[in-house]
């Protein structure tokens, strides 16, 4: 039997039921968001039979809710749509810049941050930016929703903690306190449309005395999964995030990296570049934090 199927359920319950039923019947399912990884991989790597479960019709995966304590961002919203939301851009400029790095205008009409995370590539550009913003992944399961910190979501190259009948609804991100700024930078050999050789995200909070009270640093494309680098954060907390402190954070990132050599760069090169990116992203995050202190 030719066994390709496509469904676009209208509710979370219906989606879970479809996933459960297919799993019970031994049919392979694949969640479809923007399809910019799904269809490329289907064509180039593995064209085996499956049921595509399109989660773009759900209210939850398209929702943006900006509340006092938390901001919820739906998993399936295309990056082009996210970047038209001025309020989100003001809250998380680094995260939205990371989303804006993904692909061309056409790709941005489709590609979602949920898809970027669930694809779980070591080089997924939005993952370090989600991690430094302490985003919680909100998963739909048969037992209701459960949350997973983004830094624990990806478990290996192309692997994550989702069970076969679970899927990602979106991200719950704490509202940044006054004096917080984030930034993400990556290095690619071209100026557009390429995969990161290395990437670094930084978020920090600076108090009225000019002291960094809170820092999170995450690096991408230099290990099997994006990494939260707590030693880099520790180098910043308690300082003014000056050049010295940023240089130490950079060294901590270079030390934490476990890169590989491939056509995009060698181990030594990636180690060095990821430190430079940490320092530069840290400078941008610091300047944003200072201007957000009011």
């Amino acid at each position: 039997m030719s066994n390709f199927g496509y469904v676009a359920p209208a509710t979370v319950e219906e989606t879970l039921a479809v996933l459960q039923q297919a799993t019970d019947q031994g049919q392979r399912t694949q969640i479809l968001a923007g399809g910019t990884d799904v269809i490329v991989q289907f064509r180039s790597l593995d064209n085996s039979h499956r049921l595509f479960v399109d989660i773009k019709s759900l209210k939850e995966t398209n929702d943006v809710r900006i509340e006092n304590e938390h901001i919820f961002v739906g998993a399936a919203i295309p990056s082009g749509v996210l970047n038209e939301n001025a309020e989100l851009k003001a809250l998380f400029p680094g995260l939205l810049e990371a989303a804006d790095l993904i692909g061309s205008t056409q790709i941005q009409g489709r590609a979602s941050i949920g898809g970027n995370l669930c694809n779980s590539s070591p080089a997924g550009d939005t993952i370090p930016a989600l991690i430094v913003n302490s985003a919680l992944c909100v998963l739909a399961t048969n037992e209701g929703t459960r949350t997973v910190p983004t830094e624990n979501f990806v478990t290996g190259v192309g692997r994550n903690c989702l069970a076969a009948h679970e899927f990602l609804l979106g991200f719950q991100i704490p509202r940044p306190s006054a004096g917080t700024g984030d930034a993400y930078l990556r290095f690619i050999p071209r100026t557009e449309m390429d995969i990161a050789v290395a990437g670094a995200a930084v978020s920090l909070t600076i108090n009225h005395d000019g002291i960094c009270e809170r820092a999170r640093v995450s690096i991408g494309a230099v290990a099997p999964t994006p990494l939260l680098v707590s030693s880099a954060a520790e180098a910043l907390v308690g300082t003014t995030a000056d050049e010295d402190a940023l240089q130490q954070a950079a060294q901590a990132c270079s030390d934490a990296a476990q890169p590989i050599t491939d056509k995009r760069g060698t181990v030594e090169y990636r180690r060095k570049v990821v430190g430079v990116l940490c320092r530069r992203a840290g400078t941008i995050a610091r300047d944003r934090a200072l201007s957000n202190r009011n």
Partner: protein
Amino acid sequence: MSKIYVSTTVNGRPEDVLCEAHQTLLDLLRDEIGLTGTKEGCGTGDCGACTVLLDDRLVCSCLVLAPEADGKEITTVEGIADSQDGLHVVQQKLLEHAALQCGVCTPGFVVAAKALLDRDPNPDEKTIRYWLAGNLCRCTGYDKIIRAVQDAAQELTPTK
């Protein structure tokens, strides 16, 4: 599995077609509906030859599944020229600037450039180049294409 019924609107015309779950919107347009203006260059989202508007958003039709078109409005290059006014100014300027050789990339550039000018009738060169970064051309070297789009913008906002 049985075929999937898709009811969509292409260039303002209702289309009811049957497709397979794993066909792309590009296959649907070219092979089922017979609109062959939209081209396939790579099939993997890199070249932009397959660019169409899906509910007013620019997408690569090679990266959209055919059943996703159900209930949507699609604009292809065939929907850009007007039967009364003739060619769209972007098309006219591409011609005048001789901004095409083999022409395989041109439908994608036309749809993408028109979408840009609809949003921002007066874009600077950098904006145009970034907006069109997902449209590849192996023949022209891009410069003539960029000049043509700048010229089209000039015509749309003559006060510039």
